[in-house]
């Protein structure tokens, strides 16, 4: 039949027709995302106006920047001559003139390579601790790094640092020997006692003696010459590195069943955390002076590092305690049922899991700590903020303001953003391992 060929159903699909113009492409996206209702339309317009307002005011200021001048008035002359009278223009010449001071403070000019090398070494040295892919034997390098960094930053005879480092080795072996023979408490106490006795009485003469035999050393740089970002990074990084182990111990102490340990840890955490950092800094710089005999040279920077470390340790302890509390009870019981002692069960089973949970909190505390180092300006140390004041006090740059803060803000952003990215990376990696 011929009408068999006449199909009453389409055999072939029609090509899809385009959606109406209002339902596709850019128009649709704009309608859905920016103008979906009256309220959103108004908000969109206001936001666009705001962005335009900020950008249109800031762009000329940045675009007309003067980068080469010797003083603020010269900056203005250059601007008047090349761009026009009274046009907004940033005078970034202050950064060109003083960037070394903002980065290194009063560190001797010829020795700038040392803080830079120290930073590089720090990053390299910490890698084995951060990346499990690197063979474990490189961890020895990580353990040596702090002493190398100390020597690089402060300088002096290499033997003084080496003699100081020897104290830790002595302490370690004393701990091992005493713990085997007389138990943990005697071990810890004995190790600390022997190390301190060594540092007080033997380390100095030993360093001097070695130095007189084979003098190797670099220029000694006093703490008061540290400034700018070198100061911030040294205080921040020392605080971060020292506070993590202390914070973990405090968290374990607070979870401990032992009465005295528990109460001491809790008291320490609550007291330190309950008082603002600025008060602790004032304590370090002012009140300690009254107790120490005049003329005692207890380095202000060291006092600040100790205070910052204690402060951040209290916060870390609470973050880690959160991690410990988040673990199911079964994990603790499993560790016990394997016959592990307390330290082994913590090290092998509890802490790896608890710390993993705590990573965002820990990094958050670290970023906060790093930015808090700017508070030392109140006790007269020349961190970047303190230096802005000093730079403005020179007659050349009196009256300059935003340019310095823009630079400092940018530097801090770079540091803190890298820390944040690293923490994200670490989290992702650990989560993958967990699956």
């Amino acid at each position: 039949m011929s009408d068999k060929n006449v199909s009453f159903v389409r055999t072939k699909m029609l090509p899809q027709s385009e959606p109406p113009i209002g339902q596709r492409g850019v128009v649709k996206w704009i309608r859905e995302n920016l103008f979906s209702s009256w309220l959103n339309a108004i908000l969109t317009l206001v936001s666009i106006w705001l962005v335009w307002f900020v950008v249109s005011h800031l762009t000329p200021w940045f675009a007309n920047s003067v980068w080469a001048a010797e003083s603020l008035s010269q900056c203005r002359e250059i601007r008047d001559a090349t761009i026009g009278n009274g046009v907004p223009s940033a005078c970034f010449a202050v950064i060109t003139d003083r960037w070394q001071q903002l980065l290194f403070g009063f560190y001797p000019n010829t020795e700038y390579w040392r803080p830079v090398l120290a930073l590089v070494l720090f990053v390299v040295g910490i890698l084995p601790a951060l990346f499990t892919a690197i063979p474990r034997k490189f961890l020895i390098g990580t353990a040596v790094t702090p002493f190398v960094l100390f020597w690089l930053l402060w300088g002096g005879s290499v033997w003084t640092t080496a003699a100081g480092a020897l104290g830790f080795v002595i302490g370690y072996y004393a701990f091992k020997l005493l713990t085997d023979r007389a138990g943990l408490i005697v071990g810890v106490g004995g190790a600390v006692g022997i190390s301190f006795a060594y540092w007080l009485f033997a380390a100095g003469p030993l360093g001097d003696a070695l130095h007189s035999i084979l003098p190797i050393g670099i220029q000694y740089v006093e703490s008061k010459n540290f400034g700018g970002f070198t100061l911030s990074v040294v205080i921040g990084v020392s605080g971060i590195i020292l506070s993590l182990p202390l914070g973990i111990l405090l968290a374990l102490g607070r979870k401990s069943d032992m009465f005295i340990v528990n109460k001491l840890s809790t008291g320490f955490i609550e007291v330190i955390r309950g008082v603002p950092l600025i008060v602790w800094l004032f304590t370090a710089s002012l009140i300690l002076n009254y107790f120490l005999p005049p003329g005692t040279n207890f380095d202000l920077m060291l006092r600040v590092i100790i205070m910052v470390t204690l402060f951040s340790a209290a916060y870390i302890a609470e973050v880690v305690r959160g991690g410990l509390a988040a673990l199911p009870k079964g994990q603790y019981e499993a560790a016990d049922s394997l016959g592990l002692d307390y330290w082994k069960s913590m090290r092998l089973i509890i802490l790896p899991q608890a710390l993993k949970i705590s990573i965002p909190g820990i990094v958050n505390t670290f970023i906060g700590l790093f930015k808090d180092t700017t508070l030392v300006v109140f006790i007269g140390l020349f961190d970047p903020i303190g230096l802005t004041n000093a730079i403005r006090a020179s007659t050349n740059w009196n009256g300059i303001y935003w340019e310095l803060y823009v630079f400092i803000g940018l530097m801090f952003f770079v540091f803190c953003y890298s820390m944040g990215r690293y923490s994200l990376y670490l989290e992702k990696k650990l989560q993958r391992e967990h699956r």
Partner: protein
Amino acid sequence: MKKTVLFGALTVAGLVAGAASAATLDDVKARGKLNCGVTTGLAGFAAPDANGVWEGFDVAVCRAVAAAVFGDPTAVEFVPTTGETRFTALASGEIDMLARNTTWTFSRDTDLGFDFVGVNYYDGQGFMVPKSLGVSSAKDLDGATVCIQTGTTTELNLADFFRANNISYQPVPIQTNAEAQQQYLAGACDVYTTDASGLAATRATFEAPGDHVLLPEIISKEPLGPLVRHGDNDWGDIVRWTFNALVTAEELGVTSANVAELAAAPTNNPEVNRLLGTEGELGAMIGLDATWAVAAISASGNYGEIFEKNIGENTPIGLARGLNALWTDGGLIYSPPFR
């Protein structure tokens, strides 16, 4: 119980140490350098330059004392102090003297236990307003918004002044001078008030200094000067007479340029001779070399030279001598005689 023992021990240690350090001059000599407290940065008065070398009007006093003691104006360790830390640093012995634009007041001299050794700058609180405001006297400022640094004596002086004149004002609290400049230029306040020297220095950094005027009223006395701890009068004498030597040098026309020549041999002016140690034994009386004043004057010049170099009319700060002229020129700067 244990705590009591601990605090007791600390107190005793503190007392022993305090007694041991009674002779500041010996401590300074043993240390080989002078610890001098300065501000963390105030234009013209004290600031580190790009190489970290401290310069300024207050710094010059420190250098003169170091030169008098050691003959070397660079034998100074500058300890930057903030408004909060300055007095503790001095009281606790961290610094030997404080030269940090500090106002000499009754309570600081007596209750806090310090000795002001002189006045190196007579300041007073003033007002700066934009010319466009059309104000010619501070008494016309009724209802004005005033930028004022919190927690300073200027705040109290301001309240007193407005109350005494029965007019009102709106305070805009700010923290630092730099912040005040920004607020004032942005129009957040009609008036900026602080020490007149600070106002002049601030105005000098403006794009158009001519658009702003300093009002004629000076509403407070702010004698700024170096100070030392109570209890070591010998050390106080050294700082006091080193500063007086700088003033007397200006009066007698001894400058950093001619001091070496004048000190080489006795001149026919006996007071110059006594000052420069070519006659008499003044140096020995305060435990220093005969040439102590020569060294102090060579460090950065006499008082007038220091003034002109750091804050004078040829600098961007541009302060006139005014009250700080020598008494012979109608000012208040006056030194007792060297005899």
